């Protein structure tokens, strides 16, 4: 760790310890905050050589979002959550679906997926300190699945008081309820935090107008409930040594079929030890366990039958060495055992072992120029495949108010066990199967990213352009008929080259009077040969997010924050294959915007009251397609929180 990083770490701890005393400027414009995802080392946001978008604790608090999907859509243009078959959630970020964007919690992968997307409801937003988003291929640091970007959710692990209690609740339309609580104790070298959250929402119907598509349309939004428990222990037995241990349990029940609800459980645990054994060397060892199960609860017979289990055991080592104050080398290696037992396999559970090693060098040539490069090698036992990836980034800071970045990154996504071995009776009727393909090639991408950021007094502007070339995208074929069995099936396959390019503009301001504003616009365009066969909808070309907030502290016992936020998604014209007629139709999905106003009041004795009106303009889609917001109109939300 070099001198700059030591200073950064000290600043971070100081910022955390004195969050209340931090200026509004730094907190809102964010450029003095710290990020880790782009380089795997702690860096000041304004100075990190890899462009990183940060959603801060303040943003999270102001959004009052229950889940990560609401928050990302509200904060990041170009991110859209839609639905796929069985009303499973699918994310699209600048042309990459859930399987092409790597989700991490504190740098750790999440086990399990449904329709290629991680279970987004696993993330308890009340536990989140910040979210770091790195768009573009990042496999040279994170390996498989970091094809289109990395979203790293950093949880809270610091506490300034000896004893801390929080209780919170929120209610909204459709009997949506959220209750949470946490207890934190900090004494001597140990800090422990235990949190729990419960959510529930009823099933409700949505009604489309006559004349729309007969498929890919939602008529009932399935309700459900979740429980999320997490314990986090931090030990600092001596100078330079930090040990963290965590354990979590997550439960979700979805009322897709009221008499046969889907159940999802996750058991997670992990331990990480970081030791700085000299001024220029530190080492980190970690172990992570994550088990994601799915089961069907047969209410009539009271049987809870598990039919899916994904177990990931990961051991990782990371070593940093600084050569003087300007050059840091990071060496890392990881071993993962991935076990998958699934109802979609007809010949037993599968295991994949993978190992990798990477090295990164971060060289600050002088105060203006910084270069970062990384190379990584991954090996996968299943199929005996391997992959080498590289990354190169250049950062130029001519003055303290300007940062220019240019980066090239390679990404890949090795075929999953599911995509290789699946043989799934899709409708449960023995009529149509989805078949795996043992000959799948890894999906690869190359990303070029250029950005410029300008900081002027209370204002920050950024402009970004990107180009992704994707090879061998993994998707499913159109329906085919097996000549021997006369059975209809769809098969995983690689499709030809795909280009995704676009850009993003962001302007934000924070004035001393307490007023803040941010506008972000994103453009994304996908170009491929032929008709896309992906079951997921492509990205909308234009999208924007807006935020206007005002905070004022009236007296010691009362402060007030009002936030108006919105997002706009342009219309989407998509060519889709009608499986009945095998004719390609041009389908037009309409543009829409959603606005939300929220008021938060902090009162005496740690009590706060939040009221929000979501979908302020009462927008209702004409047709509830898979990519329409499943809103029935304005939604009044009321919540409270109490801190001791």
């Amino acid at each position, binding site marked *: 760790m070099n001198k700059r990083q030591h200073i950064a770490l000290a600043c971070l701890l100081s910022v955390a310890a004195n969050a209340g005393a931090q200026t509004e400027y730094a907190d809102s414009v964010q450029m003095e905050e710290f990020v880790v995802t782009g380089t795997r080392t702690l860096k000041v946001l304004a100075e990190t050589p890899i462009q990183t978008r940060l959603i801060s604790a303040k943003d999270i608090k102001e959004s009052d979002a229950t889940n990560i999907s609401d928050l990302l859509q509200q904060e990041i243009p170009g991110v859209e959550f839609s639905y796929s078959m069985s009303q499973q959630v699918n994310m699209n970020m600048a042309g990459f679906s859930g399987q092409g964007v790597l989700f991490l919690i504190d740098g750790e992968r999440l086990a399990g997926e449904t329709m290629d997307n991680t279970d987004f409801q696993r993330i308890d937003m009340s536990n989140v300190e910040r979210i770091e988003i790195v768009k573009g291929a990042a496999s040279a640091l994170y390996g498989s699945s970091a094809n289109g970007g990395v979203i790293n959710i950093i949880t809270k692990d610091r506490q300034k008081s000896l004893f801390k209690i929080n209780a919170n609740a929120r209610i909204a339309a459709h009997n949506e309820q959220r209750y949470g609580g946490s207890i934190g104790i900090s004494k001597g070298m140990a800090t422990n935090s235990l949190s729990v959250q419960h959510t529930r929402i009823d099933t409700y119907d949505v009604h489309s107008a006559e004349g729309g598509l007969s498929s890919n349309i939602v008529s009932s939004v399935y309700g459900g409930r979740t429980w999320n428990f997490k314990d986090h222990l931090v030990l600092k037995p001596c100078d330079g040594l930090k040990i963290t241990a965590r354990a979590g349990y997550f439960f979700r029940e979805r009322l897709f079929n009221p008499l046969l609800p889907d159940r999802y459980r996750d058991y997670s645990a992990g331990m990480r030890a970081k030791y700085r054994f000299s001024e220029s060397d530190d080492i980190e060892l970690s172990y992570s366990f994550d088990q994601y199960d799915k089961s069907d609860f047969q209410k*009539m017979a009271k049987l809870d039958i598990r039919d899916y289990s994904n177990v990931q055991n990961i051991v990782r080592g990371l070593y940093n060495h600084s050569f003087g104050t300007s050059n840091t080398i990071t060496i890392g290696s990881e071993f993962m055992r991935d076990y998958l037992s699934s109802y979609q396999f007809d010949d037993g559970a599968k295991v994949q072992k993978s190992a990798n090693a990477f090295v990164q060098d971060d060289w600050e040539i002088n105060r203006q120029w910084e270069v970062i490069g990384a190379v990584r090698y991954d090996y996968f036992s299943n199929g005996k495949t391997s992959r080498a990836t590289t990354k190169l980034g250049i950062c130029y800071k001519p003055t303290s108010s300007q940062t220019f970045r240019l980066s090239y990154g390679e990404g890949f996504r090795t075929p999953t066990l599911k995509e290789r071995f699946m043989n799934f009776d899709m*409708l449960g009727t023995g009529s149509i199967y989805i078949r795996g393909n043992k000959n799948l090639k890894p999906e690869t991408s190359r990303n070029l990213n250029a950005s410029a950021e300008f900081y002027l007094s209370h204002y920050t502007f950024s402009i970004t352009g990107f180009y992704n070339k994707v090879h061998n995208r993994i998707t499913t074929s159109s329906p085919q008929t097996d000549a021997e069995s006369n059975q209809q099936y769809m098969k995983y396959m690689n499709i030809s080259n795909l280009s995704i390019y676009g850009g993003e503009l962001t302007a934000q301001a924070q004035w001393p009077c307490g007023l803040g504003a941010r506008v972000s616009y994103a453009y994304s365009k996908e170009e491929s040969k032929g008709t896309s066969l992906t079951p997921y909808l492509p990205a909308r070309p234009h999208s924007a997010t807006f935020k206007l907030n005002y905070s004022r502290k009236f007296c010691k016992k009362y402060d007030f924050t009002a936030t108006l936020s919105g997002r706009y998604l342009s219309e989407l014209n998509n060519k889709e294959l009608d499986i009945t007629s095998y004719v390609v139709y041009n389908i037009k999905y309409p543009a829409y915007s959603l606005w939300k106003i929220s008021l938060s009041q902090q009162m005496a004795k740690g009590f706060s009251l939040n009221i929000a009106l979501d979908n302020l303009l009462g927008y209702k889609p004409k047709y509830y397609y898979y990519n329409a917001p499943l809103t029935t109109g304005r939604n009044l939300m009321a919540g409270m929180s109490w801190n001791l």
Partner: protein
Amino acid sequence: MRNKKITNTIGGAAITLSLLLLSSCNGLFDGVYDEPVSDSTPDNQYDPATRRGRIVVNASTFDKWHYISLHHRSVTTMDIPTSLTGEWDGKSGITYHDVDLKNDTYTFKNLVKTDAMPEPEEWDFAVHKFDTRIKDGGAYETDFTSLDDLPAASSFGNAVFSEDECSNNIVMNDISGMLSYYIGYQNSLSNPVLGRWLVMDITTPPPTYHPSGKVYIVRLHDGTKAALHLANYISPNNLKGYLTIDYIYPYE
């Protein structure tokens, strides 16, 4: 002292890590879940004292009718004919439609003539997936959801029993074209009221299942009555159409 503290901490962490590694490769907490058991149908149950019984039928496939005799407490399974081996009776066959479920329209495409559906000598009602037939009788849907609460049969003196109806778009047989909604239906009788005990909705894949939960009174061919309740439709291994039927017979 300081070194010992560090050593103990790291040692404890290493032991914990090793234990976790050794125990968790293929997952933990198996005890949280129930174990799937065999899908072989259990013996039928009947208590002469209460006249209550339970029949379990594996009707999970589309190619068979299962004929149930409450008189003999037996189940006879017969395949649906898919070809014509003799002279056509003028009505038996598999009718193919292009199906628009949203607008509930069926466009005739093809008729494959077949032999007549065979029947055993003794039967009272029959099931095919969730479709039903009643031999020379009818069905009445009550508002009761449990046989325990059901009053005497005389309470339903004014009940109107619905008889079977002939159709060519109710009893699915060939679902190989399901994905494109090109479906072959058996030209068959089926009971529109008793069939409501469970509706399979395939409007948006995958299918969803909607049991009514109601008790049905069935008038049999000899004038006796039975009370039927579909207690379950899923096997322990998640087969849909694995029917557990509770009944009272004779129901008086």
